């Protein structure tokens, strides 16, 4: 609205200040004399047709063509030259354009990377621009993913960065928009912003590691309060950006409902990407083996450690602190007691300090297996040629004596 008022004011000032115009600028009907023809093209065959209905219904429908195509206001020669000055949206939309100039889309154009960053028209359209509150607008919340997906889909950008649209559509946010029609569900601009979309590496980006929790907290406020107190939240706040942020566990675009089997299995693997030693010892346990087989009705990391509220065991509030451990185990093992929780869910058979009984049991079993298989392996290998010779000798003897009894089938 402010943009509209500044435009009107600007036009009024311009009109008032101008000396007597040398020539009256063409009105829209004049332009449409040519541009109404759907077959009107440039020399290279591209269309120059303007659908008057589309323009009339657009947010700019009250303006003259020459308000945007400013260079035509003073043109005297008709038909005008094919090559026109680029329309400057900034004349009216100064704030949006200056935001856009901070974006990765703008930077891509400036850096001449060979990848064309989106401009105003790529997201908003040209003559048919509608306000983003209009359900038929390209930038309406329910339409925005499709608009961004024009470029951010597998077909357009090959490689891992390109499947954003496909991933998003299957995510809990994407389904919220497309299946449930929830306008409150996150769309692209909820996390990335609209005009000032920045690359995730940019510290000022809404999706930079230092900012993600705050961005998600726009909606997930209750989670954020818990997360900020957790070991991960505090570590990130302390400046160590290696600690887990929302997108590490939930991913960025593929976010699944936390009850799904796929998510529960993925989350275990995600924890393991940082906690490499812990995933190793977890996989040695029944819990870890069952999840490795792809089943989830068994303890995963979050069942014992919590999710957003993970705290170190030294904190009495932690699910694995000595005060809470019995009740944590009881959520699956109702009869768990103090003895029961002396089970080590991360026992390490290679570590005689942490797990002496397990370590020595493992060494003993190794010796036992090696001993038995070495002895009987050698025994068998030595026996084989003798047994073969015996079978042949028996056959020969049988043939000679006419004994037709087969050797081994009694």
């Amino acid at each position, binding site marked *: 609205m402010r943009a509209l008022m500044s435009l009107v004011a600007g036009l009024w000032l311009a009109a008032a200040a101008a000396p007597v115009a040398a020539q009256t600028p063409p009105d829209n009907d004049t332009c449409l004399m040519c541009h109404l023809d759907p077959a009107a093209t440039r020399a290279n065959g591209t269309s120059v047709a303007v659908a008057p209905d589309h323009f009339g219904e657009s947010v700019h429908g009250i303006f003259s063509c020459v308000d945007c195509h400013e260079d035509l206001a003073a043109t005297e020669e008709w038909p005008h030259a094919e090559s026109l000055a680029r329309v400057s949206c900034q004349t009216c939309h100064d704030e949006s354009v200056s935001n856009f100039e901070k974006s990765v889309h703008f930077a891509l154009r400036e850096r001449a990377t060979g990848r064309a960053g989106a401009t105003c028209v790529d997201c908003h359209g040209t003559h048919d621009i509608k306000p983003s509150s209009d359900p038929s607008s390209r930038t309406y919340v329910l339409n925005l993913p499709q608009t961004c997906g024009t470029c951010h889909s597998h077909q357009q950008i090959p490689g891992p960065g390109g499947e954003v649209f496909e991933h998003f559509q299957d995510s809990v946010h994407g389904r919220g928009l497309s299946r449930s029609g929830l306008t409150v569900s996150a769309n692209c601009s909820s996390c990335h912003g609209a005009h000032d979309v920045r690359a995730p590496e940019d510290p000022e980006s809404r999706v930079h590691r230092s900012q993600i929790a705050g961005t998600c907290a726009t909606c997930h406020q209750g989670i954020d309060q818990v997360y900020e107190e957790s070991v991960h939240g505090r570590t990130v706040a302390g400046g160590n950006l290696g600690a887990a942020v929302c997108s590490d566990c939930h991913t960025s675009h593929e976010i699944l409902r936390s009850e799904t089997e796929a998510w529960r299995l993925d989350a275990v693997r995600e924890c393991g990407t940082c906690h490499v030693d812990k995933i190793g010892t977890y996989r040695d346990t029944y819990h870890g083996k069952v999840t490795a087989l792809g089943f989830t009705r068994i303890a995963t990391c979050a069942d014992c450690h919590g999710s957003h509220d993970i705290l170190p065991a030294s904190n009495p509030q932690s699910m694995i602190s000595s005060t809470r451990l019995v009740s944590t185990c009881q959520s699956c093992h109702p009869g768990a*007691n103090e003895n029961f929780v002396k089970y080590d869910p991360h026992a390490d058979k290679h570590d005689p300090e942490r797990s002496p*009984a*397990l370590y020595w049991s*493992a060494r003993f079993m190794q010796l036992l297996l090696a001993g038995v298989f070495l002895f009987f392996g050698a*025994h068998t290998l030595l*026996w084989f040629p003798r*047994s073969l010779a015996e079978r042949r000798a*028996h056959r020969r003897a049988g043939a000679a004596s006419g004994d037709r009894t087969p050797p081994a089938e009694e």
Partner: protein
Amino acid sequence: MTGRPRHLVRFKPYQRLMHLVLMVCFLGLAATGLPLLFSDSTWAASLARAFGGFEASALLHRFFATGMLLCFAVHVGELLYRLVAKGERSLLWGPSSMVPQPADLVQMYGHVRWFLGLGVRPHFDRYTYWEKFDYWAVFWGMFIIGGSGLLLWFPQAFSTFLPGWIFNVALLIHGEEALLAVGFIFTIHFFNGHIRPEKFPMDMVMFTGQVSEDELRRERPAEYERLVREGRLDTLAVPPEPDWVSTGGRVVGTTAVAIGLLLLVFILRGFFG
């Protein structure tokens, strides 16, 4: 050699049945347990899913475990009955006892010398040293695998008087000892009983219960001479088993060997894949 070869009883129907139950339970336990032991192998998830998921696998595993433990209990009960009520001292010592004796060591030494062409084949009696090893391996396995398995089956009950770390040890031992048992049966036992050229394709004695007089004389000369000396050879003579017994035994035995070898391939893929 006088005319037609006679057939002699080696195993009673009860003993053959015990072997059959043990075999079925063993294969069932191996097939439902190995996916957990090799949970990071690709075949493991498929096998676990084939049994209907991990909960169904666990249920089947416990079903077969119960069968095997019952089998073991019946066997131990029978031994006690024969020992205490019937006073069969021959169970504890002598040629028809499973108890390892000095003669077994001597025969093992002699057998290896024979492998190397350094001596004659030992005169084996009713049970050889490798058969006794098989037997006691199962006995030991019953306690180790069965015991650790029960701990893991009822952790809450056992934790009323045992510290929790015992379950860490129990899981490790259960898996490793099971690997030993499965690996041993599917290689060494299969070789001794089935794949060894003298027995190939299969020693049918455990399925039919019978052995020909000729084979007994050749393979167990000490037992044969003893039976002749004691005049018991004739009491063991039976008519050859009916066809359905030998055919059935061959089908069941071949199936068991095939399943075992398939599982062995899985194990090897788990190790080296």
